[in-house]
């Protein structure tokens, strides 16, 4: 069965066919959301008009933050509606397929790795934790230096203080990550986000993700709060986002078939 004329097939993620996933009614661009079942797996999909979301439109808007933000937000919203109760493997954007058979073939070819990925995330969701340096402490105002030598010695002791503060922050961050990782089935520390993309000037010191059991949400968030309080006196702020589909933990199921052929 081909996708209707003039449409592309967009895949949001994969669920187990046996799970009674509650799908939202509408996805990207208000399109209906459905399931494409292949053996024990089911892709969450929408048929999208090619004129609004086809390949050419993607290419034209791929560097357009506004367009991409809307599409990514709607893609994520569909998965978000599913993860409260059902395990889901999120697919990387853009997930466009020419027709249903193409996606069916991929699902069949990757049934092994996808099933293994489900086993790895079973009953878990992802939480993001970031730490920002919101204020650089320990810079007391000093009277004017009385001599060049005085100036130099002050400068070097200020540098030493700064270094001590940095070492202390590094240790605190390490401890915070360790404690959160203890509550998680898996964890990953990513590169700090580019301030250009985040639009935030404060340096990002930690950008981590944790795979946490649905039942352990309160414990994890409580611990994050406690650790955030511990960071505050050193000028750091901890921020939590989630629950996310396990984007950072489901990405091992690479296609075993031929590499992708761009159109």
């Amino acid at each position, binding site marked *: 069965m081909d996708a209707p004329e003039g449409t592309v097939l967009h895949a949001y993620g994969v669920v187990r066919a046996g799970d009674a996933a509650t799908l939202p009614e509408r996805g990207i661009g208000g399109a209906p959301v459905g399931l494409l079942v292949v053996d024990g797996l089911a892709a969450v999909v929408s048929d999208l008009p090619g004129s609004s979301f086809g390949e050419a439109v993607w290419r034209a808007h791929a560097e357009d933050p506004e367009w991409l933000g809307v599409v*990514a937000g709607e893609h994520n919203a569909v998965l978000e509606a599913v993860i409260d109760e059902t395990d889901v493997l999120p697919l*990387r954007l853009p997930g466009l397929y020419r027709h249903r058979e193409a996606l069916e073939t991929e699902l069949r070819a990757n049934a092994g790795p996808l099933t293994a990925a489900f086993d790895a995330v079973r009953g878990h969701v992802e939480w993001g934790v970031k730490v920002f340096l919101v204020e650089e402490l320990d810079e007391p105002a000093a009277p004017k230096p009385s001599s060049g030598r005085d100036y130099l010695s002050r400068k070097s002791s200020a540098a030493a203080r700064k270094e001590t503060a940095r070492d202390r922050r590094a240790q605190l961050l390490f401890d915070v990550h360790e404690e959160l990782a203890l509550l998680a089935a898996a964890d990953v*520390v990513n590169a700090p986000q580019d301030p250009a993309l985040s639009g935030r000037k404060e*340096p990002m010191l*930690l950008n981590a993700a944790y795979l946490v059991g649905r039942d352990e949400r309160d414990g994890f968030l409580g611990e994050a709060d406690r650790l955030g309080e511990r960071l505050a006196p050193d000028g750091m702020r901890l921020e939590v*986002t989630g629950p996310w589909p396990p984007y950072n933990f489901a990405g091992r199921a690479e296609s075993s078939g031929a590499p992708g052929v761009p159109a």
Partner: protein
Amino acid sequence: MSVERRMVGEDVALVDLIDRLIGGGVVLTGDVVLSVADVDLVYLGLRLVLAPAHEVNESVRLSGRPAAGGR
């Protein structure tokens, strides 16, 4: 308040979406319309569009514990 929680669905930052939806997730290639290499270019392009190179001077990469699903 030192801890901020932003629940997904409230006000998700574009950078968080991009990080996850383009940087993470399962890749099923095959007959996908845009290849993964194209997407990496998208990400790179987006960075260039949004701003000139910035540098995060102090960032801590934690390496004491092997990330379970690390790249």
